[in-house]
């Protein structure tokens, strides 16, 4: 494996890692073609009653890169994840993974093809130990077939290997002290970590993470992001949903923006984040200003911050007035 050197433990490399570029063909418009797409979705739509939760005309996810899916609350990101992984059925649409159609394929078969996802609302298996949770993630276990399960000789050695791998990953995820505890005894952030580690146990081709770092402390986030970058170097593709823009900026090679079910922008992180439409719909104009300055609790550095605070106040006043008028 090419990344062996960098995945060795020791002080993290301070050299910023190269972002993967040259992923798309032509202009970076919503739904643009990719050089080597791993997922291609066409006309995927899902509505709940009157709400068009997902309404995607065309989108391609680049292979071998880290793609962030961002967008306001209720934009349809989780629903899109559910559709892609077979946990929900769209009203219409086609999508393929590794050039094979995934439409109508049940969730467990999607996972077996190498597309593994995690959930926004964490699903730790409470009354299984942390180690058992991890072992469950491994694929192609002989002991999971009914008849062979009765003969330990058939699966014991494989189970040992899986356990070793699980323990290594747990160290990485700082859960090694919890190995034999019930997953139900973990804290919220620890459960997120366990779910992500469990997904990685299957060595997926594409891992889809729904807000993986929500509730994870900053130091651990950094070390895990490092781990994700390692995995990318080993050839894994990552698609993740995240509201933490630092994380998006730090590790995403490509950003897809969703709003009201549609793909509204695509591009490399810096371009997308300076796109006025994205700022308007999602980021807000003041993402670089300290929150304390925005709320007026901290004196900003000079007129700049002051001005932006005024702007924010005016904007919110405007909005209030608009709301009033609607009534």
């Amino acid at each position, binding site marked *: 494996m090419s990344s062996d050197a960098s995945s060795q433990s020791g002080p993290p490399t301070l050299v910023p890692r190269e972002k993967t570029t040259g992923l798309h063909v032509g202009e970076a418009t919503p739904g643009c073609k990719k050089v080597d797409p791993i997922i291609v979705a066409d006309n995927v739509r899902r509505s709940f009653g009157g709400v068009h939760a997902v309404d995607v005309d065309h989108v391609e996810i680049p292979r071998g890169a880290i793609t962030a899916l961002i967008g306001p609350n209720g934009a349809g990101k989780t629903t899109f994840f559910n559709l892609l992984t077979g946990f929900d059925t769209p009203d219409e649409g086609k999508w393929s993974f590794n050039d094979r159609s995934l439409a109508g394929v049940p969730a467990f078969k999607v996972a077996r093809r190498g597309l593994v996802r995690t959930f926004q609302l964490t*699903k730790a298996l409470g009354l299984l130990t942390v180690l058992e949770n991890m072992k469950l993630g491994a694929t192609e276990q002989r002991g999971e077939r009914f008849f062979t399960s009765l003969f330990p000789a058939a699966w014991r050695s494989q189970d040992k290997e899986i356990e070793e791998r699980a323990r290594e990953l747990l160290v990485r995820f700082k859960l090694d002290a919890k190995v034999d505890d019930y997953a139900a005894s973990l804290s919220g952030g620890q459960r997120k970590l366990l779910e992500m580690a469990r997904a990685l146990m299957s060595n997926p081709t594409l891992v889809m993470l729904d807000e993986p770092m929500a509730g994870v402390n900053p130091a651990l986030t950094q070390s895990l992001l490092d781990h994700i970058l390692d995995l990318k170097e080993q050839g894994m593709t990552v698609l993740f949903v995240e509201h933490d823009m630092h994380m998006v900026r730090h590790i995403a090679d490509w950003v897809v923006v969703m709003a009201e079910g549609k793909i509204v922008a695509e591009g490399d992180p810096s371009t997308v984040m300076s796109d006025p439409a994205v700022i308007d719909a999602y980021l807000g104009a003041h993402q670089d200003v300290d929150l304390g300055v925005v709320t007026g609790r901290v004196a900003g550095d000079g007129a700049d911050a002051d001005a932006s605070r005024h702007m924010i106040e005016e904007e919110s006043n405007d909005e209030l007035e608009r709301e009033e008028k609607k009534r």
Partner: protein
Amino acid sequence: MDWGQIFNQSASSIISTTTIAYALAALGLGVHFGQAGLLNMGVAGFMAVGAYGYAISILTFGFPWWLAAIVALLAAVVFAMILGVPTLRLRGDYLAIVTIAAAEVLRLLLLTVAFEEVTGSADGLYGYSGDFQAANPIPDGEYGFGPWQFNQNELWPIVIGIVLLALAVLLVWAMMRSPWGRVLRGIREDEDAVRALGKNVFAYKMQALIIGGVIIAAGGIVYTLGSNASPGVYVTSLTFFVYTIVLLGGAATVFGPVLGAVIFWVLQFFLSNLMPALVDAGVLPFMTANQAGMVRFILVGVGLMLLVIFMPQGILGNKKEMTFVK
């Protein structure tokens, strides 16, 4: 009051076909409910399939007793598949509704006069144990000691029952320590999470339903081996007795259901002897001896409620689990 007789009776129930039959049923339900989280409310139905499958195979088709037992177990496989195919894809509670309904339908089918020739209707089936007893290798005589005394005819079904129970315990133990059992327990906790890891959840639930169902049906066979099959036995309250046993011993354990069955029947016998004796002794002047005998069923209900509220993990269950029961 004759305490000696009361204790003797209670102790004798430790080794009886009834206790063994309930232990098997509880073991099977433990696989369903404790391991896979399948809310099977049709335990009585599975037992009836075992009992009647066995009796009908002998009386109607003239099979030897061991072949009849195998046919009865295969019938349980079919019954499990009929229940599972439409319901295992749905949410858990639906399985409960369908299984309780299926068990009732089955009981009414056994009761209706339309099939009287085969099922014996309300009289049930009897007089089929000749072949079984003829196969008895135990020489004539009295065996055992203390409260446990059996002649060769009583001992034979008990031996078969204990062998079946031991095999079933071994099977369940082997399954549950394996990765297969791990997947099953994962499904109990959250089936979507297990699905996301590439496991065919439906297939696992079906396998669990079949294996548990076959073990429950084996209980039905043991219950009827040397005696008769009567539709009045396979009522819904039987299902609740088996649930009480499973919860008492520990649903998610291998030996809990067996221990639960023993405790349950010892208590039943103890109370059914004690209560009328108390009435006779004038301690319970407000009841007749008959009423007092029935009180034990009320006590079972109260016991089930107390168990679920205060000790849902059961006697052999892991205390740590309790902290996390929602």
